């Protein structure tokens, strides 16, 4: 400490220190905005990817049904899957363990280490193939340890697809598999729980334009209480914004939401 006192520091050292500080500042100033630009879209993308992942899941599951069974329209099939989501299903572990086996060779169940290959492209509509999912590293262990809710989804999808086409149940359940990381899974769960609660609570007034949307900022304190709710981006229609704000105000959030800030987009 003695050496660092101002009077004991030589001029050269002082200049050096100033230079280091200046270079640090420049780094922060240059890298900071880059981080700001890079990280936020990444984070948003990350969440949205999860959301689209959920959507894609339904589509990808259903595309082969349309292709193979050739009876059920896509929209009808999607609705079936959505309806069947909350239905409680059988044990998750067994279903997920079976799937990679079926994927590679449906007849040979005894393969020791199944590696999930990229899914075969649908012949009729190649657009539906989930690119993001295929690119992501397959965390097999994470899938096995997946929380029950996510697994339930998979199984429910499987049953829905199985119900839709009883002729090829093995092949259809094969298509339902989604490999996600643990963090992704948790975030999907987070989104699902919050979305479900908000959907239950949000009742916008009837007769307003379908194009309206508003963004509500919600800050949750350390105790899990919604500390602040404000309309971040207004729709321009007061009663619409008020309805969105009211939905976010009284919401009860689980533990993981504590100390977080949420931006909720309300769309009709």
């Amino acid at each position, binding site marked *: 400490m003695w050496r660092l006192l101002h009077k004991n520091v030589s001029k050269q050292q002082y200049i050096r220190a100033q230079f280091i500080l200046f270079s640090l500042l420049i780094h922060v100033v240059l890298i900071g905005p880059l981080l700001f630009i890079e990280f936020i879209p990444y984070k948003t993308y990350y*969440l949205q990817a999860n959301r689209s992942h959920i959507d894609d899941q339904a589509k990808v599951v259903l595309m082969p049904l349309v292709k193979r069974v050739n009876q059920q329209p896509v929209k009808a099939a999607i609705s079936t899957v959505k309806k069947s989501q909350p239905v409680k299903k059988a044990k998750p572990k067994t279903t997920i363990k079976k799937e990679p086996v079926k994927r590679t060779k449906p007849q040979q169940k005894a393969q020791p280490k199944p590696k999930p290959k990229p899914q075969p492209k649908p012949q009729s509509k190649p657009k539906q193939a989930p690119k993001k999912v295929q690119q992501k590293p397959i965390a097999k262990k994470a899938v096995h340890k997946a929380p029950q809710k996510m697994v339930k989804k998979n199984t429910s999808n499987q049953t829905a697809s199985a119900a839709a086409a009883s002729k090829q149940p093995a092949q259809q359940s094969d298509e339902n598999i989604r490999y996600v990381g643990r963090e992704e899974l948790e975030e999907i769960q987070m989104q699902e729980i919050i979305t479900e609660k908000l959907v239950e609570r*949000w*009742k916008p007034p009837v007769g307003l334009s379908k194009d309206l949307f508003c963004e509500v900022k919600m800050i949750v304190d350390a105790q899990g209480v919604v500390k602040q709710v404000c309309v971040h981006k207004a729709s321009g229609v007061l009663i619409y914004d*008020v309805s969105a704000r009211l939905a976010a105000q009284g919401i009860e959030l689980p533990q993981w939401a504590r100390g977080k800030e949420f931006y*909720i*987009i309300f769309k009709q």
Partner: protein
Amino acid sequence: MKLMRIVGAFILIITSSIYAESITVHAQQYGKIELAVVVIGTEYKELARVANQIRRDLQFTQQFDVQLLRQSHVARKTDVQRIASKGHALAIFLQETADKKGIEWRLYDTHNVVMLTGKRYHKRGPVMRGWAHNIVDQIWPELTRQEGFFSTKIAYCKKMRHGRKMHQYICIADYNGSHEQILVSGNMATVGPRWNTDVTKPLLFYSAYTPSNLRLIAIDMNKQQKVASNFDGINMLTSFSKDGKKVVYCASRGSGGCDLYYYEKGIFKRLTNNNGNNVSPSLSDDGSCMVFCSDFQTGNPQIYMYDMETGDTKRLTKGGYCACPSYCQKNNMIAYTKLIQGEMQLFIYDMAKDMHQQISFGPGSKQECCWSPCGNYVLFGIEHGNKSRIAMCNIVDHTTRYITPASGYCTYPSWSGIYSEFPVVQPPHKVT
């Protein structure tokens, strides 16, 4: 140190932004916004009646659940917070001005305890509910960013049986069908009432059968009548531009077919010249174009658009039996009726998107549609068996509601503009 603090704050902002989550929610059910109408003052008898009408108006839209409250003193922060604690997200405070010639209203966001807007309304006209309609028309754009439709009147033809005789009337009522009054009664059969667009001096144009023709008559709210067009044959269904200077109507002038005629500043000219029947003109607000119904091309009635500058005619519907077009310049849409499986159903044509959409599906034949001044509702008659009622359809959610009772036979509805002074028939006659 100062520099370090700035850098630290900057990093903190960045990190806090990174951990914000974004979620999208889609509506799956609809509800009502709880709103309080608070009457301020001790002598609130008159004001309470106005407040009650405001409550009815807001509840009619099915977007609000309104509760009336009373308060002796001017609103304080604690009062607003108390209202918020009762679950009312918004509050309207009403107070009579000191000279008793006006009403002040203030709209509050109770959650944030913020006054959003406030205005002073000068009482216009003798009708108390008219003041309430005027006030709601002022508040409505603040709530929904849409134009109001509360200070409007609807007119329609009504047939009622008295003993063995069937009587015909032309009635007017408030926008919701309440406070019905007879404007025209008599032995002559009357059809096709249409409002002018003058919001200060309302006139109703209707056609009455005479032994020689179907003449066009204008009548004001004092029941003073004047013949507007008396050519041989048909004279009916006027349509005005917003400024009221241009008018189009259909007349046959003794010939077999019916044609459209245009009148502006002493100029009277024929717009259509074909072998078919050209009826139901609907002029745009600026008078630049007009839609009408004609059968000159296909034999079946179709909807056409007529450019007033060039004189070009463009067919908008492709086949079918389409009738009664009504153009709304506010949303650039045309409402019309089309024959679907033996019954006329309501359609709207979006001019911008070039898209036709059916908005009514239920039983009953829908006839003679017209737009509300805000462009959110279509007023029309539903004929079902030997009954005919006036109904309105919200074009956003396609909900339909009747506004006339099932007892009478009501046809030819017409929706007026928004009046600054709410008109009533003098002296009033009530339908028995």
